[in-house]
């Protein structure tokens, strides 16, 4: 009876260990390796530019629904003009980075795992190694770099659009006084909120890249293996993001002296 969970936990910890080793290898390579600009630019294009529509839609509608829900509560206690402040703080420190990262994990994390997984099952990774190229240098580093650069930018876009859309909804749909609303928003949103959000996005970008690459490089045999790697990459990256988010919030709050 006890054998099964033990083995499960063991495998899980071993997997986590390998993941950390890959991350370490990637960071070491990042610091010493001369960067292949062409690959990096292509990856940034793929991660950043092609995720625009998804991320912007997410940002806008989240801002809008957050404004509406907050208003519904705040209206009861006559705090209508504080609505946008809640939207802004929420978007900057939590919803912006988390939702953007989850969307990107679904899109890019899956794509990375599928691409590297296919390369593995068709022996392209082995071919790379015979050509005296380390898979981490050639495949992992550009993807990691692209994600940790692109995700804060995407988050910033989502946050901006979310606040803008929230403001529009507050003003035109909910009839909140726009000047007070904007004033309160600026008053209650601090640089710390933004720093927190962007730091999170940076770290979540790293999680998506490393989990996607790990699952792809360690992919099982055949089409089934690739399918599994893809699903697992999305699931584990998403869960990783959500769990890390909590601890990151605590740690960053301590660091930024808000807690």
């Amino acid at each position, binding site marked *: 009876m006890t054998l099964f969970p033990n083995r499960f936990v063991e495998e899980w910890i071993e997997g986590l260990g390998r993941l950390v080793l890959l991350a370490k290898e990637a960071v070491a390579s990042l610091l010493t390796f001369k960067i292949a600009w062409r690959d990096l630019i292509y990856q940034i294009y793929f991660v950043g530019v092609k995720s625009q529509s998804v991320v912007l839609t997410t940002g806008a509608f989240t801002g809008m629904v957050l404004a509406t829900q907050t208003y519904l509560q705040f209206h009861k206690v006559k705090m209508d003009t504080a609505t946008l402040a809640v939207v802004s703080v929420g978007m900057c420190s939590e919803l912006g980075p988390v939702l953007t990262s989850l969307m990107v994990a679904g899109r890019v994390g899956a794509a990375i795992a599928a*691409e590297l997984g296919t*390369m593995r099952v*068709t*022996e*392209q990774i*082995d*071919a*790379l*190694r*015979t*050509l*005296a*190229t*380390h898979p981490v240098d*050639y495949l992992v580093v550009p993807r990691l770099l692209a994600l940790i650069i692109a995700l804060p930018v995407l988050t910033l876009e989502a946050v901006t659009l979310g606040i803008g859309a929230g403001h529009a909804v507050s003003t035109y749909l909910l009839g909140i006084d726009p000047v007070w609303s904007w004033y309160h928003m600026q008053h209650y949103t601090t640089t710390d909120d933004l720093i927190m959000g962007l730091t999170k996005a940076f770290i979540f970008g790293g999680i998506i890249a490393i989990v996607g690459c790990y699952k792809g490089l360690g992919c099982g045999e055949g089409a089934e293996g690739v399918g599994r790697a893809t699903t697992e990459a999305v699931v584990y990256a998403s869960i990783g993001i959500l769990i890390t988010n909590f601890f990151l919030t605590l740690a960053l709050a301590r660091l930024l002296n808000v807690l």
Partner: protein
Amino acid sequence: MIEVRELRRSFGPHRVLDGVTFRIEKGESVVIIGRSGSGKSVLLKHLIGLQQPDSGDVLIAGENLRGLSERELIRVRRRFGMLFQGAALFDSLTVAENVAFAFRRDGSLTERVIAERVAEMLEMVDLPGIEDKKPSELSGGMRKRVGLARAIIYRPEIVLYDEPTTGLDPIVADSIDQLILRVRDRIQTTTVVVTHDMRSARRIGQRILMLHDKRIYAAGTPEEIFASADPVVRQFVEGVSNPKEVYF
């Protein structure tokens, strides 16, 4: 140049290699033959450190691959070129980028020189002018030849060919055999060829190793192998199957 001692390797409970031992000298060309599934591809991957043995040693120019890290193996692999059984071309890159891969990574040659070398190499494998095609646009035999071009363009000291002529028409197969010999003679490469093609084995091999029953079952010059009286070797060389029950 290559020395293998008592190499053992299993996949799960399934033992594939059990005590393989042989030596290959510098500049020599050796053909490895054996039944399908006898572990030839697995053996080649051990020679270049893509897979690690369960026990036993692989020595390249006197250096034991056991316990080397991936980064250290990369240094050893610079000596090698390898043609994979399935070509294993990078499908996100064009043919030219595939063939020039080793050069690009090095960054020592200019684009123009690289382009010239690539064109020359593609000419040699009888595929001129396909630089800008993607691997998915090529036939199986064409892919194989691009893989061959990619493996030998940077003039490695040791080249491993996994079934270089399988799936090629007899005329191209013959030209590939000659190319392999030319590469060996011109730059003194140590050549290891896995093949089922007995005609090409006779032509390329200075020595033939037969992998059977998880180990090197027979070894010798092509003349010796072709004249062997051993029933297992005879059967392989002549290509006759065991009489089985007739279903059809």
